[in-house]
């Protein structure tokens, strides 16, 4: 090794802790970015390949039962390429512990010749044998069953049937069972007919014709929406009711993909910021090193080194930091990507088999791992080595000749103990260093507080949502039934305290300025209902309005050009009806268009006066167990009266399902907060220890005039506390706009509305404790080391 590289190697090894600090900070940055880009690449490749492998549909329409001739009719449309039908039956799965779980039972006409959204064999029998069920693979994490076990399923009419688990299937078109807390089961068409009593289907999946898309000149997604509306109108004219707005898939993207992209973007933004922090640390440490080595730079130049050679040496050092960090970070980020991709895959029912990251991910990591340290070091190195030989040889290490207004003001401070005063003045002595240190601390603190605030805002939004869904149990009937009978049957059920009957209809409304109309789900509810507590953005809730045809719309509808006082035209049962908007409620965790009105008004408009489609109940005690038990009793009671239940939901299950959905984001954000704490901590460690090391000679001078070691320690620790507090204060201020922006972004990405912003003071306080603690620790360690050196050693110290 040539002497100049030998010198750089020696500089790296002589202060191992400094070298380690820098390397670790880059490791964390590369790890964060590498894990996220790796996850992104794995998920992107695997999910899209998987999705293509199941012949994805363009859209899905859920209806009341229809027969295959209708499907054939749809398939004959020139805009349609392929049609696939399914029958879905909502039932209850009796668990061994006496509770029950929702189960969705599917069947298709011919499992072996499916055309769209293929259901694939995972293990065991396929297609499902007569009298047996196949269980979707993701349900295995929800219920403790295995192939060969027997399941007891309670049908909507209350009858129970036992089914043997004939095998395990994979149905990518369904979200993971754990997310919706629903078990998916698959039976033969014959078995389904036995269960439902008819041979109809109620789910129409179709793929648009590529040539028709091309001829339309439209984007595929917009064209699909147009065709879905055509199909919807066509089948409604034939007496089949479309029970929910059509689901339009984004071409090439599997279900849930948009949320994953949003999640990865959020994580990517925060992860990249850790790299910025690493950059600050490198700038700080290289700047300090160059200040310490100014004389050495002068000597090297005096013996013939060109500035470019000296620049090359120190950039070589930065490059070494990057290379060393990459050696550690690359395998770690590979593991991180594998872990995160696995979690995301499980949550979205992506059966990922190949966790290998593409070479581009490694290239990205290598490039940023090498470029960021060198780029960060570039300016301090150029500035530090541009010094002339004479200036370099005259250098006293650190600048003490400042005489700014600030210095003059601090010089006038009186009445403060001298060591505290010294700490205070020292804090502002090297302003360039202080600015860099504060930038590191501020950014780290701001992001740390932001991460906690986004997490807090997510929980606040979740609370809002759960307040909005202010019921214990919701029961959706398969048709409209006499409300009086339903109330009479259910009100006396054990633990039920209140019962409300609602009506519901999914129809269409005219969107101003747009040719196509849009879907809307309308709820008719008692005026005095307390089972929904909306967050009003404008106007009043229906209870406070005396407008006969008044409706409250959610913010999704409002965004399409409606406000309080406007009139909406909604087509109900084929007839246009006029409604006056009296209020706008915030949409929470929903992309759907929703409107609420008085029960009487809606029931009358759809000719269902005195009938109910939804039951909302309160129970006491209001716990998960009681709610589940009430669902069982209500389902059974209604079934006994020939009132069929389509779907039930308990507040606890809803809460648990939402928590599951957001856990991955919350856990990822907290993991990033941990990484930030590490990088930010390394930043504090680096900068505070530099301050001490740089003043080794001063420590010697102070000791030579009688300062005890504890007094010297005190001066540095108080200085560290000053810096930590200023950084914390600025970081907390900066966190306000950053966290608001990120909360809004996360909310918009996940639910089409900003999150309920809730600044997390505990995150900021935690960072204060962490920042000051680390600043004190990393001031204490080098000053303690300095105190162990002899006076002669300290006075001759050369970094």
């Amino acid at each position, binding site marked *: 090794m040539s002497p100049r590289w030998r010198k750089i190697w020696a500089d790296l090894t002589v202060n191992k802790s400094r070298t380690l600090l820098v390397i670790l900070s880059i490791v964390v940055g590369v790890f964060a970015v590498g894990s996220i880009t790796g996850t992104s690449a794995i998920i992107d490749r695997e999910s899209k390949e998987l999705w293509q492998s199941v012949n994805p549909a363009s859209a899905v329409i859920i209806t009341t039962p229809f027969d295959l001739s209708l499907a054939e009719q749809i398939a004959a449309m020139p805009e349609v390429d392929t049609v696939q039908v399914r029958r879905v039956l909502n039932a209850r799965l009796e668990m061994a512990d006496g509770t029950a779980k929702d189960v969705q039972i599917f069947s298709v006409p011919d499992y072996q010749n499916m055309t769209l959204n293929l259901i694939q064999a995972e293990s065991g029998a396929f297609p499902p044998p007569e009298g047996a069920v196949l269980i979707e693979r993701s349900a295995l994490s929800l219920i403790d069953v295995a192939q060969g076990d027997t399941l007891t399923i309670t049908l909507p009419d209350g009858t129970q049937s036992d089914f043997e688990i004939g095998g395990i299937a994979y149905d990518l078109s369904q979200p993971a069972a754990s997310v919706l807390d629903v078990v998916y089961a698959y039976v033969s068409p014959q078995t389904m007919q036995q269960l439902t009593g008819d041979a109809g289907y109620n789910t129409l999946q179709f793929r648009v014709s590529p040539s028709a898309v091309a001829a339309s000149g439209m984007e595929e997604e917009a064209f699909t929406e147009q065709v879905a509306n055509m199909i919807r109108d066509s089948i409604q004219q034939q007496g089949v009711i479309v029970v929910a707005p059509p689901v339009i898939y984004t071409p090439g993207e599997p279900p849930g993909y948009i949320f994953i992209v949003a999640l990865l973007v959020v994580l990517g933004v925060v992860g990249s910021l850790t790299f910025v922090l690493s950059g600050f640390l490198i700038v700080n440490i290289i700047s300090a090193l160059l200040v310490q080595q100014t004389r050495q730079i002068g000597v090297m130049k005096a*013996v013939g080194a060109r500035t*470019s050679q000296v620049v090359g040496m120190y950039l070589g050092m930065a490059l070494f930091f990057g290379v060393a960090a990459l050696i550690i970070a690359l395998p770690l980020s590979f593991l991180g990507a594998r872990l995160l991709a696995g979690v995301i895959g499980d949550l979205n029912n992506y059966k990922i088999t190949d966790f290998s990251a593409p070479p581009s991910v490694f290239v990205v990591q290598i490039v940023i791992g090498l470029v960021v340290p060198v780029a960060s070091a570039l300016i301090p190195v150029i500035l530090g080595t541009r010094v002339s030989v004479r200036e370099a040889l005259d250098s006293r290490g650190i600048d003490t000749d400042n005489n700014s207004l600030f210095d003059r003001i601090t010089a006038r401070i009186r009445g403060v103990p001298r060591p505290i005063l010294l700490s205070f003045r020292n804090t502002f002595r090297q302003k360039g260093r202080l600015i860099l240190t504060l930038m590191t601390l501020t950014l780290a603190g701001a992001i740390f507080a932001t991460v906690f605030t986004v997490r807090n805002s997510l929980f606040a939004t979740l609370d809002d949502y759960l307040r909005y869904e202010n019921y214990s149990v919701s029961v959706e009937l398969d048709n409209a039934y006499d409300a009086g009978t339903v109330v009479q049957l259910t009100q006396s059920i054990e633990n039920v305290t209140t019962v409300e009957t609602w009506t519901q209809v999914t129809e269409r409304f005219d969107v101003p300025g747009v040719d196509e109309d849009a879907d809307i789900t309308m709820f008719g509810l008692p005026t005095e209902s307390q089972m929904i507590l909306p967050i009003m953005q404008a106007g009043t809730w229906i209870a406070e309005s005396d407008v006969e045809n008044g409706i409250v719309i959610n913010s999704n509808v409002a965004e399409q050009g409606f406000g309080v006082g406007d009139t909406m035209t909604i087509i109900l049962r084929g007839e246009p009806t006029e409604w006056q908007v009296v209020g706008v409620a915030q949409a929470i965790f929903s992309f759907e268009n929703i409107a609420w009105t008085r029960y009487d008004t809606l029931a009358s408009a759809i000719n269902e006066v005195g009938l109910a489609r939804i039951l909302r109940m309160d129970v006491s005690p209001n716990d998960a167990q009681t709610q589940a038990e009430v669902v069982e009793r209500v389902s059974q009671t209604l079934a006994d009266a020939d009132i069929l239940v389509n779907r039930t939901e308990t507040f606890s299950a809803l809460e648990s399902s939402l928590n599951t959905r957001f856990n991955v984001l919350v856990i990822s954000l907290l993991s990033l907060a941990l990484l930030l704490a590490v990088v930010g901590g390394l930043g504090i460690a680096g900068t505070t220890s530099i301050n001490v090391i740089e003043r080794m000679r001063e420590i010697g001078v102070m000791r030579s005039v009688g300062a005890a070691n504890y007094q010297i320690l005190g001066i540095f620790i108080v200085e560290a506390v000053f810096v930590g507090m200023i950084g914390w204060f600025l970081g907390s201020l900066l966190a306000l706009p950053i966290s608001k922006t990120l909360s809004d972004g996360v909310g918009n990405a996940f639910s089409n509305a900003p999150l309920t912003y809730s600044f997390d003071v505990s995150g900021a306080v935690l960072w204060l404790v962490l920042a000051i603690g680390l600043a004190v620790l990393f001031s204490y360690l080098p000053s303690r080391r300095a105190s162990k050196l002899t006076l002669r050693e300290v006075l001759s110290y050369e970094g």
Partner: protein
Amino acid sequence: MGTLIELKNVHKVYKTAAGEFPALRGINLSVNEGEFVAVIGKSGSGKTTLINMITGIDYPTQGDVLIAGTKINGMKEGKLAQFRGRNMGIIFQFFQLLPTLTAVENVMLPMDFLNMYSNGERRERALMLLEQVGLADHANKVPSMLSGGQQQRVAIARALANDPPLLLADEPTGNLDSKTADTIFQLFENLINQGKTIVMVTHDNDLASRVSRDLTVSDGEIIADESRQNRYVRAEKSEAVLS
């Protein structure tokens, strides 16, 4: 003997908080190859500034500095560094060895920067130079393991690394005891015998008396420029007067 160093009407003015300070005032100087020149004077007289003009470490406010016929003031910094590395060896009062390099690595450093000699030859030459200064046994020690005199000898070996014709030393013995200073001086005399040219700033009048020429600087001007021969003549005259 050709002229190696030539200063023509060199002025140097420093701007300080207290105002302008003229460190050199119209210096004219020629030093021939093979001369051993001592620059003497009180603190603040301008000795170090003068030597910094010759090395190119500092530049004149007015006038020209020529080394071996090449004007170095106005030369670009990178080119000057290479020129200095090839043509001059500099020895500092406080040795200025790189603390993390061993003695032999410190000596190899100028060869490395100037890309002089092959990789294998550099170590060989550095060891030879250390042997020349009597430190072959200490080649692999870092500076902190060497005494002041030993460090200065390593610095001399480093100054000779690229075999420059000119050595410039700023108070090379100022930080050493008299016995060690004498050893260093003997090294310089050997180098003069080998054909090198040395310009040395010193406070030590005894050492100054042993050089071939001494320049006395005061208030930024050369007030005396005496060769050894002139000193003998002057000494003889003084003795005659006294007797």
